[in-house]
């Protein structure tokens, strides 16, 4: 069960000539990889590059059209997760495969015993789980329902699930996509413990900083092909980014613009939750034309309420919300759209798009009542389709056409679709909630440049993001959300990442050092 004594690290996994075709799409094209014990291999690539497909073939969810897999020197039968598990391969899926209504212990133990035993040996299962938990520093509550766990806890449960089955090769599909920076750091710590124990890890990622934080080797996939394999230490970000995208990528460079008149003003806005807890607590905020205002903060500090407020989904309990100088009394989402608010929702799948509907239907979802798209209560499908073709062209949405079902698009293309829907009409205020979450480098830079274009065109942008690098790259001013309150606006060139980190943790006393003059106006900053 444990690895052989530290000789030369043995090759534990060998993929040879893997190809997989989905209809016209060649998802994997003759990919060969080797993995050694104790190694962390980062599989880097844009969305749709074929990373997940490759790992799903390895784990038996798909069957490769060509190629062979060898695990620990023995060929792995294709198309069977059970065979993969028995060969010592464990996979942590991007969308966790846990049942919410069952306990952690049940989730981990299911399928590990012969089905026809007359009773489960739960105490042995519990002992084994707690033992693993202690050995690798993965804290769990065996009897908690999975539905009650935080995302980080669920991920630990997933990793333990693999370890419980004696996995010696662990595949992690985009493991940090849903984690906070702190949780990610904890995950990388865990990975180090696992590899020290002789496990081999493959983790799929499209985030550069993770590759450097956690991997020994990096394999870059582009459009289904393996384009390079490097020792992580011997390469650098720019080189990897170029390999991934196939061209060089420039970071966004906002041109300085002087802010215009205010488009969004919040004055003393308070919003309470259903339970009476304040979600927003006396918030003052002004967003002007030609200005990007970034809201930093750990999620759950009022950002969602702020986004819903500006979208018209909720109303302030007290205080005032004004758009372009006029007070909004009874805003609803349609009204906000009419007033020139463009929204990029936090969760594009649940709040942004209707996956089962066509691209053109989604594109006119906010304005199907407009004269351009309906007459006498009847949709003008021709007009809507040609409009959709225009947006698809202009925003470079990669899809078969206006009639394609939206759920078939990749995340990046869905986001472009949303950008097209919201930006095509020259909005005055853009509410961008986590606009690049889960997107690859190419799509991120596209979204960023579009937002900056809109800023140049005269829109104000309210950017809510957990990615501090994104905020500092785009925003003219930054404010930090903490317990439903916002700091005064801080010019982006006067605040550092570490200062933002302190503000995010509630140490508002440092505002004194950043903004000595506003300290006088805001006596509450301590």
């Amino acid at each position, binding site marked *: 069960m444990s690895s052989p004594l530290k000789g030369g690290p043995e090759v534990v996994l060998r993929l040879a000539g893997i190809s997989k075709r989905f209809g016209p799409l060649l998802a994997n094209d003759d990919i060969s990889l080797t993995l050694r014990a104790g190694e962390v291999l980062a599989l880097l690539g844009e969305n749709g590059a074929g990373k997940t497909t490759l790992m799903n073939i390895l*784990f038996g*969810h*798909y069957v490769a059209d060509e190629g062979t897999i060898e695990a620990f020197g023995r060929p792995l039968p294709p198309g069977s*997760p*059970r065979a993969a*598990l*028995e060969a010592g391969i464990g*996979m942590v*899926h991007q*969308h*966790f*495969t*846990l*049942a*919410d*209504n*069952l306990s952690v212990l*049940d*989730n981990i*133990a*299911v*399928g*590990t*015993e*012969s*089905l*026809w*035993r*007359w*009773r*489960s040996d739960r105490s042995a299962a519990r002992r084994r789980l707690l033992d693993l938990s202690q050995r690798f520093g993965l804290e769990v509550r065996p009897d908690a329902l999975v539905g009650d766990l935080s995302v980080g806890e669920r991920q630990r449960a997933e990793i333990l*699930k693999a370890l419980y089955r004696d996995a010696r090769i662990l595949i992690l599909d985009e493991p940090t996509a849903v984690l906070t920076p702190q949780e990610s750091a904890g995950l990388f710590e865990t990975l180090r413990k696992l590899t020290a124990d002789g496990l081999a890890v493959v983790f799929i990622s499209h985030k550069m900083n993770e590759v450097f934080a956690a991997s020994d080797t990096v394999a870059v996939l582009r459009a289904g092909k393996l384009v390079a394999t490097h020792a992580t230490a011997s390469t650098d970000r720019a080189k990897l980014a170029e390999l991934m995208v196939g061209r060089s990528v420039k970071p966004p460079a906002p041109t300085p613009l002087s802010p215009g008149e205010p488009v969004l003003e919040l004055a003393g806005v308070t919003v309470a939750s259903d339970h009476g807890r304040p979600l927003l607590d006396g918030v003052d905020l002004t967003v002007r034309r030609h200005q990007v205002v970034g809201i930093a903060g750990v999620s759950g500090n009022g950002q969602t309420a702020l986004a819903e407020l500006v979208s018209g989904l909720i109303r302030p309990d007290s205080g005032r919300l004004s758009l372009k100088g006029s007070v909004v009394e009874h805003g609803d989402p349609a009204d906000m759209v009419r007033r020139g608010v463009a929204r990029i929702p936090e969760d594009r799948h649940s709040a942004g798009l209707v996956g089962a509907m066509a691209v053109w239907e989604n594109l006119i979802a906010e304005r199907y009542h407009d004269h351009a798209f309906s007459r006498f209560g009847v949709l003008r499908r021709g007009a809507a389709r040609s409009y959709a073709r225009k947006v698809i062209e202009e925003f470079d949405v990669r899809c078969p056409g206006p009639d394609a079902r939206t759920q078939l698009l990749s995340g990046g293309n869905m986001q472009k679709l949303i950008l097209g829907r919201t930006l095509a009409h020259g909005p005055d205020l853009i509410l961008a909630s986590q606009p690049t979450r889960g997107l690859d480098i190419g799509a991120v830079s596209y979204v960023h440049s579009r937002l900056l274009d809109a800023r140049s065109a005269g829109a104000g942008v309210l950017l809510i993001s957990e990615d501090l690098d994104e905020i500092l790259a785009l925003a003219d001013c930054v404010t930090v959300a903490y317990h439903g309150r916002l700091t005064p606006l801080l010019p982006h060139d006067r605040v550092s990442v570490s200062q933002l980190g302190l503000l995010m943790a509630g140490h508002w006393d440092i505002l004194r050092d950043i903004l000595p003059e506003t300290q006088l106006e805001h006596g509450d900053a301590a």
Partner: protein
Amino acid sequence: MDFLSIILDILLSAAFWTAVLRIATPYVLGTLGELLCERAGVLNLGIEGIMTLGAMAGWMAVYQGADLWTGVLVAAACGALLGLLHAALTVPLGLSQHVTGIGVTLLGTSLSYFVYRLVLPQASTPPTIEPFQPLALPGALAQTPLTYLAFLLVAVVAYVLYRTPVGLAVRMVGENPAAAEAQGLNVTAIRVGAVMAGSALMALAGAFLTLSAFNAFFFNMVNGRGWICIALVVFASWRPGKAMLGALLFAVFDALQLRLQQASGGVLPYQLFLMMPYLLSILALVLVARRASYPRALMIPYRKGER
């Protein structure tokens, strides 16, 4: 006598509780069967037809000379077969569970009548068999063996679901089949197996009617009991123990309305009393089932390799 003392008299009589346990039996069995299917993620609206087939097949086997327990086994086997049909259409083929279930109900009901008429084309008064006799026990305990079997099965199903690996596997495929598959379980086999076992229990509920409660097979004798079981599963929040309580509660209402009908001496229309158990069940559902957390994958077909 005022109303309260009438009710008190009824509730204190052993005959009343004998009737309650008897009435509850098919509901207990049917609800357990439906619960098992739904725990695996498959809604089985075929229950009404499966109960009818169980009632007919069990009775027919005994009428043709088999002994009573063989009749019970025949009924269970026929139920499992109809369950296999439902499962084959809804699990590997992923058809709509609603539509398939209603189809199975129509098929089961019509097939039963058809076979009955085929064997007994001329019968004007339904022929009878010698049914199960109540055990020689005092008071409400004087029940037929099938009633005892039903209540024993509550404990068995609860034990299997919560204490055995196969029960955990059934719950897992009903909650998150993708997770079950990632753990190396065969989702299709487990779902099909659970639906077949559940359907066999439903058929037992039907067989109880012809082999214990009555001694003959009538058209329309299941009379909506299957639909009540579907509601009872929700009422029970998919738990066997609560399912038994729900079935007993419904039986109490039903036995009570029969006796109140008699006691009222025709002052009130009897339809009002007939309505009572159903009305009270709806009320109970409204009060209890709002918090029900149903199996997450219920009614969602699972297709391997699809995201």
